[in-house]
């Protein structure tokens, strides 16, 4: 295989419409070699369509996609050699045996026979399918079928692997196996996976693209996304003492620190306070040192992380928000938005 450039996938201004429906709307992103990227989005956001365009299965209306430097639209056969693809629901022919199927696929992907024979053993080992190699695909369990799909995608050692919802319908144990398998590809192959199972994406991906309505509404590593969407860090502290001028005292610790909420105190005198700061630095140690010095008894202190789920909900909602018409409703600037 020819040498692989540093940027394996380049998508610019991609548009795909189905009749009146715009599935992908001016999408641009790029993926570096060896990176694992998660495509995240609600149903119908354009994830599968984007992936199908990347594989060269569907033509786009406008925009360009380059895989390893080759444009998909004009050199489909060159780009398809670099792509391993596992579609949604992982369709497999029911009447073939696992090893026969992999052989057929390997031959279609132009692997030489001798190389293919060794490689099939390798991927079967990698995907833990050795015991099932002679079984018929139609009789395999869902988890095993999914692993056959992954084995098939990595079979020809492509530079780019595209998997549409690889863990859908698997039990937690199998999800961990699949996740480890994907993680083991890091650094060697660029992987794009789509999912709406968020912990999934968070655990495996280096970078997340959140798509809604065919557009990227947020992108970055999970940590960056949290900061971008929420822009603040919050701490939850359980303390006992005179809380009346807590807010003023906190200014002395960090000027940006405010009290977002102060719960009622329990019978034992401990109250729960939520502190919010815009600064990115971790204030945990300072708080632990300063609060007892100010005369508070501290029982617990925790930094609350917004989960990727919150980020996802906020980001997709923000994008709906952005698309709402600016029509004043009863003097209000906007139609009421769903509450966060």
């Amino acid at each position: 295989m020819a040498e692989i450039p540093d940027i394996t996938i380049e998508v610019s201004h991609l548009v795909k419409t189905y009749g009146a429906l715009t599935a992908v709307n001016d999408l641009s992103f790029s993926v570096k070699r060896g990176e694992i990227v998660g495509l995240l989005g609600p149903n119908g956001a354009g994830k599968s369509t984007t992936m199908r365009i990347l594989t060269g299965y569907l033509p786009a209306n406008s925009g360009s996609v380059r895989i390893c430097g080759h444009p998909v639209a004009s050199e489909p056969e060159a780009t398809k050699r670099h792509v391993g693809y596992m579609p949604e629901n992982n369709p497999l022919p029911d009447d073939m045996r696992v090893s026969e199927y992999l052989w057929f696929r390997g031959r279609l992907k132009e692997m030489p026979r001798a190389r293919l024979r060794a490689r099939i053993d390798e991927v079967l080992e990698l995907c833990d399918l050795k015991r099932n190699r002679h079984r018929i695909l139609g009789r395999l369990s869902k988890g095993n079928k999914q692993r056959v799909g992954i084995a098939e995608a990595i079979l020809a050692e492509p530079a780019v692997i595209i998997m549409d919802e690889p863990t859908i319908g698997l039990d937690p144990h199998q999800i961990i196996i699949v996740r480890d398998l994907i993680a083991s590809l890091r650094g060697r192959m660029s992987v794009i996976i789509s999912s709406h199972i968020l912990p999934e994406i968070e655990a495996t991906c280096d970078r997340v693209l959140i798509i809604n309505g065919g557009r990227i509404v947020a992108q970055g590593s999970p940590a960056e996304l949290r900061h971008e969407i929420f822009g603040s860090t919050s701490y939850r502290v359980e303390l006992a003492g005179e809380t009346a001028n807590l807010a003023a005292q906190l200014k002395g610790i960090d000027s940006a620190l405010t009290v977002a909420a102060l719960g009622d105190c329990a019978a034992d005198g401990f109250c729960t306070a939520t502190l919010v700061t815009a600064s990115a630095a971790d204030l945990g140690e300072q708080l632990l040192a300063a609060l007892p010095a100010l005369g508070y008894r501290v029982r617990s202190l925790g930094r609350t992380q917004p989960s990727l789920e919150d980020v996802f909900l906020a980001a997709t909602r923000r994008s709906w928000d952005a698309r709402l018409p600016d029509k004043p409703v009863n003097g209000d600037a906007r139609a009421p938005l769903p509450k966060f």
Partner: protein
Amino acid sequence: MRHYFTIFSHEVRTLLYSPSTYIAAVFFLGVMGFFFSNILEAYSKAPQETPPAVVFFQVFWFPVLFMVPLLTMKTIADERRQGTLETLLTTPVNTAEVVLGKFSAAYLFYLLLWGSTLGFHYLLQLYARDSRFLDPAPLLGGYLFIAVSGLLFIAIGIFASSMTRSQPVAGIFTVVLLILVILGPRYLGEISALNTGVLRPVKGALDSLQIFTHVEDFTHGIIDTRQLFYYLTGSALALLFSILGVEAKLLNG
């Protein structure tokens, strides 16, 4: 065309494993055996003018109507339904290779099934112990007709299969198209209005599309290049439309 043989051997394998192939084979051999024994019975009762082989090939249309759909309806429609067409087309294979591979495999089976009817003639020869019964010339012409017309019939089946994701629809569509191609010119040719004036050339064209005339010519040893041209271009056209059919479905989602 480097993937053609991969797809071809895969398709042969699929056909070997598919029950519809065996249903087609059993039906076909049963029906043809029945016809053949009927023909022999008729010949044993009264002397006839045409050799038995000629009459045998006259009924070609009947097995074609059920055998071709059974061999071809699965090819593309089923892949589309299962979603394996998507995985197939995301490998460095082009649509033409897929369609041609599937076509060749179905055609091979079509030829094999017809080839097995050679056994009838062999059995007749074996028991009659009379070389007059095995008349090689009409047999040669007849099987040549089967081979050439099979190209068109199978291509029509592949085309129907590329139009839909449902096997039954593909099968019925194949039968309809085959009836139009085989029996259509015969009935249209009988319209008497065609015999007058400007419509005369239309009548001439319809007459040369008569597949029943073709089979008679072939079995009598007349090999007309116009007829060969008809089958070759017809099948090429049907295959071209199948390729376009597969690709058009992608364009429109």
